[in-house]
């Protein structure tokens, strides 16, 4: 039983998160377990998590995308540009922003799957290109965006800001899709053994392209939400997000070699890092030490995970 739980990263991680939360609540009873703090934590990780879902699907099928951080900025800036300079209605602008992101995903996917260009270089190069485009679109920041656009992220439901709900929606939706639909389950086969998947009648290349489009699309959504939340579109948004997100996904059970990972893992991984950061601030760890301690905790966690697995698989 216990060994089963430890085998599944999302369960072991979930347990760990519960433990951390309880401990933190005991030590910092009147700062940590407050509604404001917890809802704010969720709000702050909503962007990362939405992107992480797309990344998780890519990782399941054995690839990854380094350009998502730039796409976040690009989508936000392009949408803002369309709103501000072309005065198109909000829905249109948002659609344009997201479609443009999907298109970027298509380019990555096509060149990687059909022209088999190395994914690492392809998406790294795209990172630079798209960041540049974001800059060209926005010049500096684009300000005073229409009320209805800002409303997307700034309005609240049950006292919690919308991005949190969008995030949860994304998680639930894709958890369902990946567990229950044949279409998405194919990604496990592709990640498991590409050639075998092909010989079993799975159109591997097409599926990969779709995965890239999907993950870029989600990055686009995240970008729109973020700039709506900021009430401005900054070309500097989403810097270094790609590595944060990949880390979250891997923490959540994915692996660069593909075939493994579950959607909720994306949320749990991001949540874990956010909690640690939050607790460090609450316990007054100074800036210099934060990275060091976060790093040590990350490694320590994975290490403990392995050790426990060994221990209990014996039983």
């Amino acid at each position, binding site marked *: 039983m216990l060994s089963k739980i430890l085998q599944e990263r999302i369960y072991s991680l979930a347990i760990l998160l519960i433990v951390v939360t309880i401990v933190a609540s005991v030590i910092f009873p009147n700062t940590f377990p407050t509604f404001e703090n917890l809802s704010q934590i969720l709000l702050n990780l909503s962007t990362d998590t939405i992107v992480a879902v797309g990344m998780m699907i890519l990782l399941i099928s054995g690839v990854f995308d380094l350009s998502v951080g730039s796409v976040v900025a690009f989508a936000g800036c392009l949408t803002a540009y369309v709103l501000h300079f072309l005065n198109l209605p909000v829905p249109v602008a948002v659609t344009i922003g997201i479609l443009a992101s999907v298109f970027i995903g298509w380019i990555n996917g096509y060149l990687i799957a059909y022209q088999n260009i190395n994914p690492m270089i392809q998406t790294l190069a795209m990172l630079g290109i798209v960041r540049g485009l974001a800059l060209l679109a926005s010049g500096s920041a684009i300000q005073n965006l229409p009320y209805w656009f800002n409303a997307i992220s700034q309005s609240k439901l049950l006292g919690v800001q919308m991005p949190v709900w969008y995030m949860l929606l994304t998680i639930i939706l894709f958890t369902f899709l990946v*567990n*229950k*639909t*044949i*279409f998405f*389950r*194919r990604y*496990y*086969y592709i990640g*498991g*053994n590409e*050639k*075998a*998947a*092909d*010989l*079993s*009648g*799975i*159109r591997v290349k097409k599926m990969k392209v779709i995965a890239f489009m999907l993950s870029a699309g989600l990055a686009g959504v995240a970008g729109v939400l973020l700039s709506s939340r900021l009430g401005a579109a900054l070309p500097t948004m989403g810097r270094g997000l790609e590595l944060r997100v990949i880390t979250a996904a891997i923490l959540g059970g994915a692996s660069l070699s593909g*075939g*493994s990972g579950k959607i909720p893992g994306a949320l749990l991984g991001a949540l874990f890092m956010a909690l640690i950061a939050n607790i460090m601030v609450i316990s007054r760890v100074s800036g210099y030490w934060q990275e060091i301690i976060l790093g040590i905790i990350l490694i320590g966690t994975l290490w403990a995970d392995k050790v426990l697995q060994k221990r209990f*698989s014996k039983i």
Partner: protein
Amino acid sequence: MKHLQLNHISKTFPGVKALSDVTLSIHAGEIHALCGENGAGKSTLMNILAGNLQPDEGTIVLDQLTQIIRSPQNAFALGISIVYQHLSLIDSLNVAENVFANDHPVNKFGIIQFGKLYEKTSLLLQRLKLDQITPNTLVSSLSPAQKQMVEIAKALSQKPAILILDEPTASLTDKETRTLFEILQKLKKEGVAIIYISHRLDELFILADCISILKDGKYQGTFLKQNLTKASLIKLMVGREINSLKSESYRQIEILLSVKNLSGQKFHNVSFNLHRGEILGLSGLVGAGRTEIARAIFGADKIESGDVVLNNVVLNTNHPFDTISKGMAYVPEERKSLGLFSEMSVQDNITVTHNNLTSHIYNATEAAQRSVELKDKLKIATTNVQQKVVNLSGGNQQKVVLAKWLLTNPEVFIVDEPTHGIDVGAKFEIYELLKSLASQGKGIIMISSDMPELLGLCDRILVIKKGTLAGELSSAEATEEKLLTLSTY
């Protein structure tokens, strides 16, 4: 070395007791055959000897000295070398570097002498009569049979005192098999102890001095070849007689599949018809291009010219998906790299194609049901269908690959070396399976290097030579000699 003694070896894997209290003794200068059903524990026992696995209980005694073999390095040091059932070659490197993996000839400064390396390798290759490949051919460009031979060369390069071969002939054709046997006989005379695992029982009676039998991880005894008949051996292995193939034909007049002037990378203008209920054999030497023809028909490789006609409709396919949905199935030759999702469960492996074709929503309970049914139908030996496929024995892995095609209920089965590394029992089960499929009016194209099985099973046999159709023989007229002549001269 004079004498190797295995005492009371036991090994348990999560869920399975692979070996229980196995005691075995092997002498220098003898060829000691080891046989047993799939999953009997043969490879496990050999992996213990090779230092890849540690026994839970039991000792290994070499010349009166108890040895603990912790790692492959230990094994080499003790003069034990092994030809693994699953290839252990590195595709990205050339033949020479694979043969002398980790013990390249070096000068006194530890600098590799590539000259020597290539000399030594080409000598070995000559010994194995592998004239068509050179020391610097990339392993990735070899056919499975050639890979197997390189694997053997690798083991020989160690100049072992104990040589273990785990189903070396599974992917070999007669030509290489003979070469191998000559070499083994020579080594035997030189006083090397040879442990030989195979599911091809005829071989054992040609080659072995004595035969030991494992059943469900238990030692069944060692017998001199003279004291055994094939029947009695099978009975010891399987625990029941196996009635030989009843070779009635289900061939109908109606043509199911016809291949017209098909040309591709490695083959040119191949034409033939496949009738309903027919089992059509493809024979030939290694590298003849049979697999390529199969892949092309199945839509996995590009067709340069020619047509594939199924039920009188020309298929224009650019992906297996099309052929599969039109009712074709292909069991690839290279099980591990092309057929299986090793890290996934038996259930996921069996249901992959089915899911891909049918509904959009995944129904776990149905998938479980179906795979359990097939597990029982094909007698796949595994604790449960959630077991990862890597943990299955070679034979059972092959059954999993077959099972996944039974779900799509295809009309044309293309099976490439379907009985590689499969025990007699299972082999006959698979023959039965193919026969019953034929009786249901399905068409079967069977690529095999095991001539007896071709002769026993097929209604017609096509011989492929250097990518062209060299001849056709009906089951009546076909003999091993005729097949060989057609495929060589």
